[in-house]
């Protein structure tokens, strides 16, 4: 545990150090250009001091992002439109909705594919093709088309989340549902088990480890989907909207703090799926074993 914490902290320190250095180089250059344009003299000390204090820096230093995070998370009420918690919660809604429906859809498609050869040859190419289309290209179309039939708000964003999250679940579940032991299948055969029994008592359980591995990917993809869905559509709320307005007004601190919140949110979501996995493994009596 101690060792784990140590390696985490030392890596964090290295990242912060690199970040400060990069901020100095990028913002320093900006500063020097400005000063030279104004035909002013400058010294390196002046540049180093100024680099971490520029307004609208090219790369804000960690403490600047930290200040922005404190301002937009702690100082503002959660209901404020300038609170990152408020925006994170909007994104979280569509992420979770999209994740739940995407996972269910992914499982359903996999069940269909595993049980029906025709479905495999007819559906699988579409499943794969769906993921080769850049999500940025179809996200606005989905939002506009659904908007035209008066479906707005969380639903279009959830659909884009679903679009991204069903795929890993389908692929993993097709493999998982086929991963059951040949011997166990024969055993079920000797009990003259029905297809339903074989599915619910054998295949479903064999697939569970695969399912959880894919759910971790799916929930992260659902978050990306929700943010991407907020980007091009002029959404008023959500982390994507925060990113977009930040880039409109050159508020790099705002962009970076929204990114950090998004990354933290993603980590928490993946961690929660991990906890659900551990609870299930314990119930299956496999935790100490695995």
């Amino acid at each position, binding site marked *: 545990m101690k060792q784990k914490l140590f390696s985490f902290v030392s890596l964090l320190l290295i990242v912060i150090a690199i970040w400060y250095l990069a901020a100095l180089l990028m913002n320093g250059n900006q500063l020097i250009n400005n000063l030279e344009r104004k035909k002013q003299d400058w010294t390196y000390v002046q540049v180093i001091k100024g680099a971490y204090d520029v307004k609208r820096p090219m790369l804000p230093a960690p403490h600047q992002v930290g200040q922005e995070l404190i301002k937009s998370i702690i100082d503002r009420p959660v209901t404020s439109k300038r609170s990152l918690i408020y925006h994170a919660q909007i994104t979280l809604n569509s992420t979770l909705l999209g994740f739940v429906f995407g996972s269910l859809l992914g499982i359903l498609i996999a069940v269909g594919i595993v049980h029906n050869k025709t479905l495999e040859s007819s559906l699988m190419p579409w499943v794969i093709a769906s993921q080769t289309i850049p999500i940025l290209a179809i996200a606005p179309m989905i939002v506009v088309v659904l908007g035209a039939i008066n479906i707005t708000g969380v639903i279009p964003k959830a659909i884009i989340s679903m679009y991204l999250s069903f795929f890993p679940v389908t692929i993993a579940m097709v493999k998982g549902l086929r991963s059951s*032991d040949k*011997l*166990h299948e*024969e*055993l*079920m*055969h*000797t*009990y*003259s*088990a*029905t297809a339903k*029994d074989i599915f619910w*008592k*054998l295949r479903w*359980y064999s697939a*569970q480890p695969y399912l959880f591995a894919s759910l971790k990917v799916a929930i992260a993809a659902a978050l990306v989907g929700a943010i991407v869905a907020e980007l091009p559509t002029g959404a008023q709320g959500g982390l994507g909207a925060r990113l977009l307005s930040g880039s409109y007004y050159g508020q790099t601190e705002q962009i970076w703090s929204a990114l950090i919140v998004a990354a933290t949110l993603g980590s928490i979501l993946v961690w929660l799926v991990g906890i659900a996995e551990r609870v299930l493994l314990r119930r*299956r*009596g*496999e935790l100490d*074993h695995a």
Partner: protein
Amino acid sequence: MLATEETTIVSEATVTEKPKREMIAIDDLSLIFPSKDGDVHALSNINLSIKSGDFVSFIGPSGCGKTTLLRVIADLEKATSGNLKVNGTDAQDARLNRLYGYVFQAAALLPWRNIQQNCALPMEISGLSPAQQNKQIDKYLKMVGLQDFHKKFPWQLSGGMQQRASIARALCLNPDLLLMDEPFGALDEITRDHMNIELLRIWSETQKTVVFVTHSIDEAVLLSTHIVVMSPRPGRIVKVIESPLPRLKTLALRDDPAFHALASEIRTALAHEHAID
């Protein structure tokens, strides 16, 4: 007076062994696996009759078709030609009616179920009530000596205990016929001896018919009432030997001259076939 006489006769009859019926009847059965390098004759012209209550071992070298023959009886493989009756019906009906319990070489317990839940599996499928399930589980786990292991998961048990659990699972549906495919093949010799004696005890307690695949001559002699010696290429029966030893044997019997005589008879039958090969 007449009536009482009749009842005494009937009760005498029930005390003695159940009347034997034909459990498995195999008539000129062959199984050919087609392959690119020519057909493989896994089983060739098999004729065999197994009576209820018998303990029959199939013995022979690898590739002699002993496991395949067991799988055909279990309807896990289909014969190419010939006739097979299991308890008077064809093999598929016997399987669909859950007439037999099958024990594989590996215990094949589901890792996500504890021992009790594993034993419950066949009964869940056949639709027994949970109360009946628990009654059977308690009875047979006790019979195989695992009464304190209901809640343990397979990985917490040794190989021998896992195999016992799988035997209990096979017994839970109370089938008339027990098909066992080298069930103790993966166990060490000491555990194996112990399991053999346990199996003999269970067999005599339950009066079941057992068909047992092995490649150990000692095991075949120790367990069986009948020994079916088989030979490869093509897989066929060389000799069926009826054991002169008592039904219920002990480990001490292995020092008996009759035991050695039977073992030697089996060895001769096996060697003879190899010479021809």
